[in-house]
Each structure stands twice: as C-alpha cells, then as structure tokens.
C-alpha cells in the first residue's frame, strides 16, 4: 500500500463513464422485486458495449430500496444477477444508484481500483408508490398524516404558481417537450406529440398537477461502468470524463424551507463548473421541479434539457438518477455533446440532490 504525501485532491485519479445500459421503462414487470430479471440482460448489454467481463470489474456498487421491494435485504438477491463468485468487492446504498455511482467514483479516486460497475433497480409497481414514498417523511410528526409524494409535490407546485415563479403553461411546456423528445427514445414508457393547449385542457390529478406533470410509475434498471481516466481510453474511444460530482441534502422540514427553490442543488452546482454545458439530463419527476432545477443550476436557453425525454417519459425508482448520468454520458461518448451535466434527486420535494459534470476525455 502506498500513500500520497500531499493532501491535494487534484492529484487523484479522474474516473470516466465508459458504458451505460438500461432496461425498457415499463409500467409493470412480471419479475421479482429483487430486479434480477431486469438486471441480467442490462448487465450483459453493458459488458458487450465495453468488451469487459465480470472479472475486469474492481468494485461494484448498487442502489435500491427495501421498501419498494416490500422486504428486508432485497438487494442481496440482486447479487445473483452478477454471479458473484469468485467473491466481489461490493457495496450498496439505500438510495438512487446515482449515489452508488458517487461511492464508486470515490473508490476509484482512492486508487484502490481502476474500474467499477454501478447498477440500480426498482419495481415501483409492486406497491402503491405514492403511499410507499410517504414513509420517507418524519415518522413521529408527518408520516402519520400519510402525505403522499404527489400531494407534497402539488403543494410545492402551488407555492410556485402563487408566488409567480412559474405558470401552469410553463409546466405544460416542460411536459410537451419531454414527450416529444421521448419519441426518439426506444426505452421510454411515455412519448408523443401534444400541444400545450391540449395538455392544459386535461383534468387535474392533484391540484394544480395534471397527469402530464407527474412522472409515470415505472419498473426498470440501469447499469453504468466507470474506469479511471488512464484506463478509459482503452475501453471506449471517447470516454465521458467526470470532471466533478457533488451532492447535498436539504432539511426534511417541509415548512422550514422555501419549496420553490432547491438550495441543495444550488450548493452542489456552485461547487462545480457547470458553465458551457451543451446538455443537461435532469431528474425532475414533476414538471415544475424541472423549472426549479434549471433555475438552481443557472441553465440558460442554450442548454438542451433532458433530450432522452427525462423521467416524465419513464421514472424507474432508484435507477432513474443513475440513468440521467448514463444518458448524459452517452451523449458525450457519441460525440453529440462536449460537456454534459447530469442531476439526480431523492426524497420529498427535491430534498436531496446530486450534480455531475462530464466532458469528452481529450
């Protein structure tokens, strides 16, 4: 074991995304809640893309939720999708797998490993998602009221409308663009052409939210492969070098923060160089949340927002954030973007947020 004598973080290895695969976003799978059936083909696709195999991976990290699966230790069975023998160097976060990618990114930067595979999965259809998510709130003072995830988001949207920060038309425009973009995404669950006027004619689902404002309930899984910069070019011709990744959390007390802003996203973005990005894949499960995020990150009209269609086109819980990083990286790897931003969120009303910036490795 050798140690660096300097305390500088500048000297650490810079990891890059070299592969990304995801399952189709679907309303309901017939598979088990441990994700194995979704993960096996997705892992195979990521390995095929990169020419790597199980034995090439130095570290594995996944993200998922026992509550979504309805049982303790659901992630243990997911390891069966890997065929983890001989034993693997592995960890798991009870968070969206974007944070598993963060843990893997840190692991590569310690110099202990030079490749990592990150995966996330979730079978949202196994329960009543909006009620399951209400159990993320304070168990003593809030959860007993069963405020479901859509109602909390609706309160957030209402605050923005009343303060004049956005209009229902602004929200519908986000939905129209997302659905139109998703037509080019073969894995999207929802896509199509809709005029803003038509969308606004639709009935309210949870005032002021209409169906188009709310991400669908989605089962799905994603896989991202990372490699240290000096290894990445041997794997793909144009790796998406992660130049920075930051995450922050806000107070859980819904009445104690301005819900029309996202201070944690602002802080994460301010710690990075988010200027000059061509593309931003944002994890906004509600239309108004995209408006909050664009503002928090200072993304101007020149930035292409969520060309995949974003999570309004398919929101696989616990892998959707990782998929945003994968989608942004894919644009860079394909040469469609030089610099891309990806964002992931977790918790009620955008409580926790992660921002990553990637650029083509020169």
């Amino acid at each position, binding site marked *: *074991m*050798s*140690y660096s004598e300097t*305390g500088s*973080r500048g*000297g*650490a290895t810079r990891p890059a995304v070299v592969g990304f695969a995801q399952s189709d976003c679907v309303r309901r799978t017939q598979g088990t809640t441990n994700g194995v059936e979704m993960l096996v083909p997705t892992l195979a696709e990521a390995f095929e893309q990169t020419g790597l195999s199980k034995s090439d991976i130095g570290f*594995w990290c996944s993200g998922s*939720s*026992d*509550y979504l699966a309805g*049982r*303790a*230790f659901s*992630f*243990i*069975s997911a*390891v*069966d999708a890997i*065929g*983890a023998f*001989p*034993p*693997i*160097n*592995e*960890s*798991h*976060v*009870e*968070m969206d797998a974007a*944070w598993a990618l*963060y*843990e893997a990114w*840190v692991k590569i*930067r*310690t*110099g*202990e490993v030079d490749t990592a595979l990150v995966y996330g999965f979730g079978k949202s259809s196994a329960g009543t998602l909006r009620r*399951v998510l209400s*159990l*993320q*709130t*304070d*168990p*003593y003072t809030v959860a007993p009221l069963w405020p479901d995830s859509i109602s909390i988001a609706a309160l957030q949207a209402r605050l923005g409308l009343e303060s004049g920060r956005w209009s229902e038309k602004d929200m519908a425009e986000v939905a129209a663009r997302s659905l139109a973009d998703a037509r080019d995404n073969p894995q999207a669950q929802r896509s199509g052409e809709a005029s803003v006027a038509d969308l606004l004619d639709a009935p309210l689902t949870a005032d002021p939210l209409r169906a188009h404002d709310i991400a669908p309930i989605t089962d799905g899984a994603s896989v991202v492969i990372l490699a240290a910069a000096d290894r990445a070019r041997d794997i793909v011709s144009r790796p998406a070098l992660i130049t920075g990744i*930051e*995450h*922050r*959390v*806000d*107070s*859980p*007390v819904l009445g104690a923060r301005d819900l029309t802003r996202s*201070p944690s996203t602002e802080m994460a973005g301010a710690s990075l160089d988010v200027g000059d990005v061509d593309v931003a894949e944002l994890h906004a499960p509600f239309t108004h949340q995209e408006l909050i995020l664009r503002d928090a990150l200072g993304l101007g009209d020149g930035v292409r927002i969520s060309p995949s269609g974003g999570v309004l086109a398919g929101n696989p819980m616990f892998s959707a954030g990782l998929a945003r990083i994968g989608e942004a990286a894919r644009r860079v790897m394909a040469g469609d973007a030089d610099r891309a931003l990806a964002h992931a969120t*977790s*918790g*009620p009303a955008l*409580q*926790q947020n992660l921002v990553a910036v990637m650029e083509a490795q020169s």
Partner: protein
Amino acid sequence: MKQRAAVLGTGQTHHAAKRTDVSMAGLLREAIDRAMTDARVGWDDIDAVVIGKAPDLFEGVMMPELYLADALGATGKPLLRVHTAGSVGGSTSIVAASLVQSGEHRRVLTVAYEKQSESNAMWALSIPIPFNMPVGAGAGGYFAPHVRSYIRRSGAPEAVGAMVAAKDRRNGSLNPYAHLQQADLTVEQVQASQMLWDPIRYDETCPSSDGACAMVIGDEASGDAAADGVAWIHATSMRTEPTTFAGRDQVNPQAGRDAATQLWHDAGITDPLSEVDAAEIYVPFSWFEPMWLENLGFMPEGEGWKLTESGETALDGQLPVNPSGGVLCTNPIGASGMLRMSEAAKQVMGKAGDYQVDGARKAVGHAYGGGSQYFALWLVGAEKPE
C-alpha cells in the same frame, strides 16, 4: 493516490432492549455528540456525513436518513446512506474512510444505528423470498446448521461455544455501554440455558438492542494535530458472494477468506496471530468466534476452537477477541459492525478503559452479514501506516 486517514474520535449510546426514552434522532445524537466530543470537533469541522443501518423495515421508516438530515447535522452537506446487510456498520465505516482517503474531504462523521424495539427484527428477517430457502425463524435458525457443520468438521468439544459466551459476557461487564451485564455467568450456566436452535443455546445468542455508534474520521493533518492518540487506518477490505450456490462453503466462506487475505496483504501483515494485538469480530452466536478465527486466518482450518479453549482469546490472552463484550453483549444490528470498527480503534487509541488490552498497537475490526456472505474488515494501528 491514496491519502492517509485516521479515526479521530468514537462514541456510542448506552445500549438496551428498549430505548423508549429517545427518538431515533435522539439515539443517534447521543452517539454523535460523544464521538464529536472525543474527536474535539465542532459541526463546522464536518465536511460530510455517512450513515448506515440494516433494513428500513426494522423501524418502519423508508430511508430514515432523509428525515434525520437535520439531526445528523447533514443539512447543506453531502449525506450518504449505506446498507449492506449485517456488515453495514463495517461497510459504512469503510465508505466514510474512503471519502477521506480519496482526498475528497478532511473530516467525515459516520454513524450507524438500529432501534430494534420499533419492530420485531426476527420476523422482519423471516419474510419468504421467491426462489430462496426460507429463513424460518430469524438468524439463529439460519445459522444453526452452519454451527453444527463446524462442530462436525472440526471435532471441537461441545463446551467451546459456552466458553465464548461466558468470556464475552465477562468482558461486557467491564464496558459501561454494553447492553448485557453478566459478569458472573459461568460456562456451566450457559450450558444449562434453554436450547433455542440446536446447538445454539439462549446464553450463546446475541440480544436485540437499541443503540448507535459514531466516529469522526479525519485526514493526515487532522490525525497529526490530535492531542491524544488516533487510530490510523492501515487497510480496509470488503467482499460479497451470493447466498446460495452449489458447493458453497457456508462455514468458511471464500468471501471472508478473500477479504482477510487482502486486508493482511495491504496492511503488511504476514502472521496475523502474532502481529495483531486485539480483534473485534462479529460473533452473534458463540460458535462464530472459532469459525471466524479460521476464516480470518488467525488459525488453520479446523483449529480455531483450540485458541478459544486454551483461553488465548480472553482479555489477557495472546489474541483478545471482543474485549468490549462484542455482539454477544450488544446487538443494535445496523450499529454492531461499526461498534466492532470503533472498539478496535479505541484499543489502539488507548481509550478502552477497563477492557483495554495492554500495549495494543494493532487491532482488527470485522463485520459480516447476510447468509455469511458480506464481509467488511479494517485494520487500525497506533502508528501511521507506511
């Protein structure tokens, strides 16, 4: 390039079957406040928070770190939540260490907990899983066949399990934070206690505890600046294998052996038994002491029980195992692994009080989870690693 990291301070709660006097947040703060006092740091010194716990179903809160963000002092900071089965307290410590070793942060607060009295862990663990053999009734029923197999394979005398239990309870009585305080429990009493899952008796079984453990991990400069001793992190390792597959050795799993091999290699240790001064090993059922002594490479396969039987794992033995009393005295599941890591750190910091191992310079912390398939290890030392 890897940076050096050290445990600057540790803290834990008083552990009990039911801590109805505190909320989850209150329980965590008890451990956190003690760790921060021990490390002599304030909230402004903490760059990030890493929390670990076992399944959310144990308390009935989905991703409780979200609701706990304010109480953890994490608001406005990076917050990570680790979950790797029973090894989670060990894995969480390692993730926190890596945040410093990568050069990302200078000081990281890490905490792990379980408030088992909020539910019934035995039944929360016993949910039928498609395509898997049912656990039956909790972890004891799952592990009893492994223990029987170990006794058959090694030819260990029956009393060895009871000796471990009596020794760990004696050690625990020296630890004011330990849940079970049974200074006078004898081997004979253990052998006379109720049989729960043959051959595991009541007194050879860990309790179900409410409790939390916390540590502050800092970079080299923070370690150098500390007035009294810190525990330098010499090496960490983690390994996972699937729960079941044909030919799997569940008594002496390869994942554990591989994790140990890497740990000893990275720490520059060639003879663990003579070079390690104290071991905090995850022993939820007494027989796992000899089993893990072999799995970790302290003893050859089939001979772990000999070290126990000869008394060499007692506080004054060649390799004191679980001087704090271990999991057999205190088991807040999510925190149990971090307690092993922090108790190892306390030994090399010289802060273990009445259960201090004389002259401890190097100590190992060990945690395992799932069906003996998740392993997390670290080796800490009083001196800086080379």
